[in-house]
Every structure is written in C-alpha cells, then in structure tokens.
C-alpha cells in the first residue's frame, strides 16, 4: 500500500488540483455564467506564491518551507485573484453565454503573454526552485485534500442557502430573477469572484507542488480541460466537477497501464499513451450524447438517497 501511495503520490495530488479547478469553473456556472477564466487566476496565484517564496520569504536551501507561509501565500493569492476578478468581471459579465467564454479566454491569453514578457514572472524561463514545505509529493495532500474537502463543503452548503438559490435563479431565467428582486450584476459578480479566488489559491499550492512555474501553466488548453471535467462530470451538482476532475486526471495513468498490456499493436500503444486529448474529445462527444447532464446528476443523487434510506 505504501509503495502505491509513493508511486502515485504526484497523481493523487494532481487529481485533487483538477477537482478544485473544476469547482472554480463550476462556481460561476452555478449562476449561469460560462467563464473559462480559471486558468488565468490559477496562473496568477502560482506566480504570487513563486515570487513570494523565492524572493520575499527565502529559506536556506535544504530547509523546509514553513507551512504558515504557504497558508499566507494562499490567502494573498485569494485576495489578489478576488480583487482582479472584481475589476475584470464588472465589464466582462455584461456579456452572455459564449461571448463571456470568449472574453475570459482573452483574459487567459493576456495573463500568458504578460508572464512571457515580464521580468518579475521570469519571462519565458519562468521561476524555478520554488521551496518545498513537504518531504514528499504525497504530503501535499494535507493541503490540497483538505482544501478540496473544505471547498466541496462550502459549495454544497452554498447550493442550499439563500445566495446559492439566487445563483440558480439567474441560471434558470435571468429576467425572471431580476423581476423577483435579485440583482443580476452583483450576484453574477459574486459567483465569478468566488471561482477566481479558489483558482488563485490552487495556483499558489500548485506552484510549490510543481517546484517551477512558467507561462505554460494556466493556458487556454487548461480552460478546455477544466471545462471537460465539468461537462463530463456533471454541471448541475457540486459532485459532478469533483468526479470529473478526479477521474479525467487519473485517466491517462489508466491508459498508460492499458498500453503496457502485452501483445498490443504499436499504433494502439502510442495512441493510448499520447492520445489523451483525442480521448477527452471523444468522451465529451459521447457524454453529450449519452449523459447530456454529465455523469453525476441531481436525479442520480436523489435515486442514491432513496436507496440509502430504503
């Protein structure tokens, strides 16, 4: 068992990051806003942690990075992402549907191009040698796992509270929600800011976890990948994005294991190893055909509940 966790420690923590990023995209989606901006805030959160830990709070090489500083970086990343989301969201959220998605992709590109060209983000090379608070990759689960549990709890409770219902009203019918006294602008903005804060926090942890941070983190590819987690996992309950993030991140490892099955033709082996994005694409098409609401739907949860009670 120990060797399993050590071998797959990196993967397990990556799975929790994906689930968290999927939740960060799900938050604005709760209010009907298709925002693909999560990778932009993820990248910014990562740069905040990278710059702070290498330049502002340096530790002697070899010494572990203090955990309370990591927590402080997470807080700063959340605050900066939140304020930035407020500034960007106010004009961007006037757009609807696919136009908002396009505007948020533009934000992701702006952050990428800026980080490629700014001195503070290390230009194309990025920032490396980010200090490690933990001895092994698996130990990051103490942060990412707890963060996932806390976020899941937060979103679950949110869905059953006054503000969560206001989000749902906007998703269902914005015009009627306005006529029922819900302020569409501030409510959408709130959902957008919450998603951005979560993505920023995940970026901060991820920068330490990956040891290096550069402009390849949080790109347009990531936007689509995170959207795939939400669509395939299910976009109507918080469990959908979590399941989607966990499963789809584990998928390449499963495929790699499958590629190791002896006797497969070489073409199949290389497809299983490198065709990850093709397989995601096929899965998105299949899931829209057979599970239009994703794998985990509210109806499915109700059925489980009934079985549990019976």
């Amino acid at each position, binding site marked *: 068992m120990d060797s399993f966790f050590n071998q797959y420690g990196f993967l397990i923590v990556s799975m929790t990051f994906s689930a968290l990023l999927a939740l960060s995209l799900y938050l604005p989606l709760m209010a009907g806003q298709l925002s693909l901006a999560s990778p932009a805030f993820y990248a910014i959160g990562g740069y905040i942690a990278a710059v702070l830990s290498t330049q502002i709070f340096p530790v002697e090489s070899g010494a572990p990075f203090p955990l309370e500083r990591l927590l402080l970086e997470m807080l700063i990343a959340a605050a900066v992402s939140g304020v930035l989301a407020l500034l960007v969201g106010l004009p961007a959220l006037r757009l609807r549907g696919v136009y908002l998605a396009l505007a948020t992709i533009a934000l992701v590109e702006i952050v990428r191009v800026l980080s490629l060209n700014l001195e503070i983000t290390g230009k194309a090379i990025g920032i490396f040698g980010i200090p490690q608070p933990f001895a092994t990759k698996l130990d990051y689960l103490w942060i990412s796992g707890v963060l996932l549990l806390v976020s899941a709890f937060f979103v679950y409770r949110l869905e059953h509270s*006054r*503000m969560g*219902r206001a989000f*749902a009203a906007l998703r269902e019918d914005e015009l009627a929600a306005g006529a029922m006294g819900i302020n569409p602008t501030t409510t959408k903005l709130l959902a957008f800011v919450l998603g951005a804060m979560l993505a920023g926090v995940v970026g901060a942890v991820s920068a330490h976890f990956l040891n290096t941070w550069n402009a390849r983190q949080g790109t347009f590819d990531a936007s689509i990948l995170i959207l795939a987690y939400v669509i395939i996992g299910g976009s109507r309950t918080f469990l959908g994005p979590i399941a989607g993030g966990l499963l789809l991140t584990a998928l390449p490892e499963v495929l790699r294991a499958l590629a190791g099955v002896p006797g497969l033709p070489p073409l199949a082996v290389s497809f299983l190893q490198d065709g990850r994005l093709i397989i995601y694409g096929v899965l998105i098409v299949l899931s829209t055909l057979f599970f239009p609401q994703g794998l985990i739907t509210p109806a499915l949860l109700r059925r489980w509940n009934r079985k549990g009670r019976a």
Partner: protein
Amino acid sequence: MNALLQVDGLTRRFGGLIAVNNVSFEVATGEIFGLIGPNGAGKTTLFNLITGLTPPSSGHLRYKGADITAAKPHQIAARGIARTFQNIRLFSGLSALDNIRIAQHVHTHTGILAGVLRTPAARREEQAVRERALELLRLVHLEQRADEAVGGFSYGDQRRLEIARALALAPELLLLDEPGAGMNTNEKAALSDFIRHIREQFNLTIVLIEHHVPLVMGLCDRIAVLNFGELIALGSPAQVQNDPAVIEAYLGE
C-alpha cells in the same frame, strides 16, 4: 384619490413602432385595475415599462410618490411591485419550494458566509423562509408537490404557482399578465374569486391584463382600454362598456 402608481405621459418606441403612446393614468391603493385592449395594443409593453424590464422613451412613473422611471427591475421588485408573465417564467428546473424561496430574496439577509456556516441567525431565517413558502404553496394547493421540479407541472398549476411566487415578494402592487389565459369558463370564475381573495388577504392593489370580458367586467373596479398604444377609455366597467371608442376598437366601425 390615493394614488399608489402614477403613469404620466409614458411612451415607448421600438424603431418606427410606437408601442405605448403618451399614456397617463393612476392606480388607487386597494383597487383592482383592468387593462384591456386588442392584441398588440401595448398592454404587456406597459407592464414591462412599469417593472423596469423596458426603459421608457419618455414619460414618468411614480410609485408611492417616488420616481421609479429609471429604476432597474430588481429595485422595483424590492419596492413592492411584483408581476407574473404572459408566457409563464418560472424557474422550471427548480422545485416549487425553491421557486417561492427565491422570491423572498429581498426580504432576507443571509450572506454567503453565514449561509455556508449555517449560523443561528441564518438557520432561523431559513426556517422562516421555508414556512412562508409552504404557506403560499398551500394557498395555491400545491403543498403536496413542494419538492417537484415545476417544469413538469400542468399549465394551470404553473399559472397559480407563478402568482404564489409573486406573492412571496410581499408586494403591495401585483401585476398579473393574462392570469386566465388558457383557462375554461369555470376555471376563470374560480380565478376571479382567487384574485379577490388574495387582494383581501394580502392588502393588495392589483393591475391585470385580461381578454375575457365577463371576467374583467365582474372583477375590476376600473378599467383602462388601450388601442394601438393609446389610452382610449378609462372608467368603471359600465362606463367603458358603453364607450363608443371602445366598441369601435373591438368591433370595428
């Protein structure tokens, strides 16, 4: 007359079309005010102007003496004007209970953190919101279906639920856009009683759009008649019924 709503020279143009043309009237506190007119006369546009969904091209709206001409829909709802829609606009993917809970938004205060942490105050508020929602569902005989998604409800049930949702805003002025559409004569009679009942119970002032003449004549204290965006008659049912301009608008020369 104690005017709750004052409509003053209200005009709305859509390109070359004048949907509402210089319309003025007042709605008195406590009355049931009918708005009738042939198809395309501008009745629904007038509702959209009053509730802020469409900004007026010119003219003014006053509610309880305050100017609400430039107010946004959610601000108008918060002031106590609720409405239903001609083509029912419930939150169809949500339960009946949630539809009504959502409409209590402006009267509740639980913020995002208090809601997530379920503080004692948030729990108390949640309990009150739920009780009030169930009470309103009982009023429209839908309490048994509180947890069902409303998209599957029958047309009549959706109409009644939409009125219950509007009542959850605790309005003083209720705008009903063709509440009797698609109902048969018996159902319309029951609706008429229901509207009178809620006016008494909730101290409402009601403005309603309706095509069915007997229902309007029997129910309304006063009636305004619109034709091609213009107000052509205003008065008691008897006055309006015998007005030559109204007869001409409905029957032609």
